[in-house]
């Protein structure tokens, strides 16, 4: 396999630091991934040279900024194989993408008595915006339940669909349990009833190859910072036919065509949804992250991560008193677990002191925790720069935790 882990690790400067006097083991990749040097350089380079606003200036640097900014949009279009570049909207993250959707799609297409379907696995970011718009429009929010393995129950999904269903919004991969949802099946079922589907791909696009035309999803959103790019940039992909119909989410400069005090007409896609000065440096940085992923090869990444997850699952299963939450047949990136009689917060503090970064708590997915009747979990989440040796260190740390608390 063309995958030189030593060389790859050299690309990520943050990996080479000590925490409490020991080398960092970073297993909190579902929260945010580390950034390769090329991404950092790209941001520095923007501020050191181009540093101009996009889409307005006639001067050289402004044109250069616009070109790089728009090249990144095209780069992202290619990466997810969208039909049109103007179907790629820049936001500040997945959360904003979903808020834009709930507000704008909701404003146009939801009325009293309509229904929105989400799932029990969702991150709060894919629950609350829909809850708010449903409350405003007096629409109903329906939830696809999960089984004990943490998998969506597709049969129940079919039962939830009615003539009143206006949109389905589900995650591609669960941030709390690592379940890979059958989004293709969900999209196909929904489309049989002419219902559009939005996919929260914050975790999905990191561990899977995405082709929005092949999936035929109507919307797909994700964040740069979870895929080795800078924070503060997100994407909303939407099919042109929907985006054209949807009203602007925020208003101001850039998104307008003409403004008089009597009436404003809006700019065309994608600018209709991108008011104000965008996060140019980080958008360009995100472009570098996509180039970096392409260089390593998403297929290579998937293969390596699958093997690592399998190894980690085996190793953790070997620990007495450890229970994994989320045992879906198809999982990616994440292992959520608890240690018998030990609170996840207690375990997290000790694991941190052993220089390992994991996340503890509810992972912004309180309904999932309630479903299993637990206060939270300890979550180890992996990226392609993690190694089996690091998994071994996690295992050692867990054994230490058990020794201290039992």
């Amino acid at each position, binding site marked *: 396999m063309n995958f030189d882990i030593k060389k790859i690790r050299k690309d990520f400067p943050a990996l080479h630091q000590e925490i409490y006097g020991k080398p960092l083991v970073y297993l909190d990749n579902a929260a945010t991934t580390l950034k390769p040097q090329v991404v950092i350089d790209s941001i520095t380079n923007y501020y050191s040279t181009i540093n101009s606003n996009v889409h307005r200036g006639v001067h050289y640097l402004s044109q250069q900024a616009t070109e790089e900014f728009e090249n990144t949009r095209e780069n992202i279009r290619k990466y997810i194989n969208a039909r049109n570049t103007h179907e790629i909207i820049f936001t500040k993250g997945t959360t904003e993408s979903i808020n834009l959707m709930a507000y704008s799609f909701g404003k146009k297409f939801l009325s009293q008595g309509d229904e929105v379907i989400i799932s029990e696995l969702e991150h709060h970011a894919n629950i609350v915006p829909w809850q708010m718009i449903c409350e405003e429009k007096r629409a109903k929010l329906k939830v696809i339940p999960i089984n004990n393995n943490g998998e969506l129950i597709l049969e129940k999904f079919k039962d939830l669909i009615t003539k009143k269903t206006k949109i389905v919004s589900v995650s591609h991969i669960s941030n709390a349990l690592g379940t890979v949802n059958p989004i293709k099946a969900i999209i196909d079922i929904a489309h049989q009833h002419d219902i559009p589907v939005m996919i929260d791909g914050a975790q999905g696009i990191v561990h899977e190859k995405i082709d929005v035309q092949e999936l035929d999803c109507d919307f797909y959103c994700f964040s740069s910072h979870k895929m080795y790019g800078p924070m503060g940039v997100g994407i909303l992909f939407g099919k042109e036919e929907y985006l054209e119909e949807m009203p602007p989410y925020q208003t101001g400069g850039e998104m307008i065509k003409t403004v008089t005090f009597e009436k404003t007409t809006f700019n065309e896609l994608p600018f209709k949804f991108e008011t104000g000065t965008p996060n140019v440096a980080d958008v360009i940085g995100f472009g570098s992250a996509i180039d970096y992923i392409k260089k390593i090869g998403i297929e290579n990444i998937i293969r390596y991560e699958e093997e690592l997850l399998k190894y980690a699952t085996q190793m953790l299963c070997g620990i007495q008193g450890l229970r994994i939450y989320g045992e879906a047949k198809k999982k990616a990136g994440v292992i959520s677990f608890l240690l018998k009689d030990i*609170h996840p*917060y*207690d375990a997290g503090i000790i694991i941190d*002191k052993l220089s390992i970064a994991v996340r503890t*708590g509810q992972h912004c997915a309180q309904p999932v925790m309630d479903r299993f009747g637990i206060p939270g979990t300890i979550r180890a989440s992996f990226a392609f720069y993690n190694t089996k040796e690091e998994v071994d260190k996690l295992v050692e740390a867990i054994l230490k935790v058990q020794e*201290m*608390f039992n």
Partner: protein
Amino acid sequence: MTIREIEKEITEEFSMFDDWMDKYNHLIEMGKSLPLVDEKYRTDQYLISGCQSRVWLSAEMEDGKVIFKADSDAVITKGIINLLIRILSNQTPDNILNAKMDFIDQIGLKEHLSPTRSNGLTSMIKQMKLYALVFKTKMTQ
């Protein structure tokens, strides 16, 4: 004992540990040894919500002094609660209100009282002082 004296005692106690692990083992022991509060106090009425661990706190006034009882679902949080109770319980409202609590920093546990930890402890201290203020107001009425 005054709050200052107890703080000094705790600081000396913790100065014996060179190693973080010994310190945390001590905290865990203290967490385990803190008596569980009565079930009737482990309700939402007494709950101080933290995203990571939960804390229950109750306060009563006895002979001009405030008696705190508290509990948590996490042991390390409970260990720190034990320290806070040792210091602030059985003191007058004025003394509680004036307590600086900087000993936490001296014994190297400041990180646990940072609001970003969201373990309920920062809110717990605020709540303890609030109780003291309420009792003080009642006393002067």
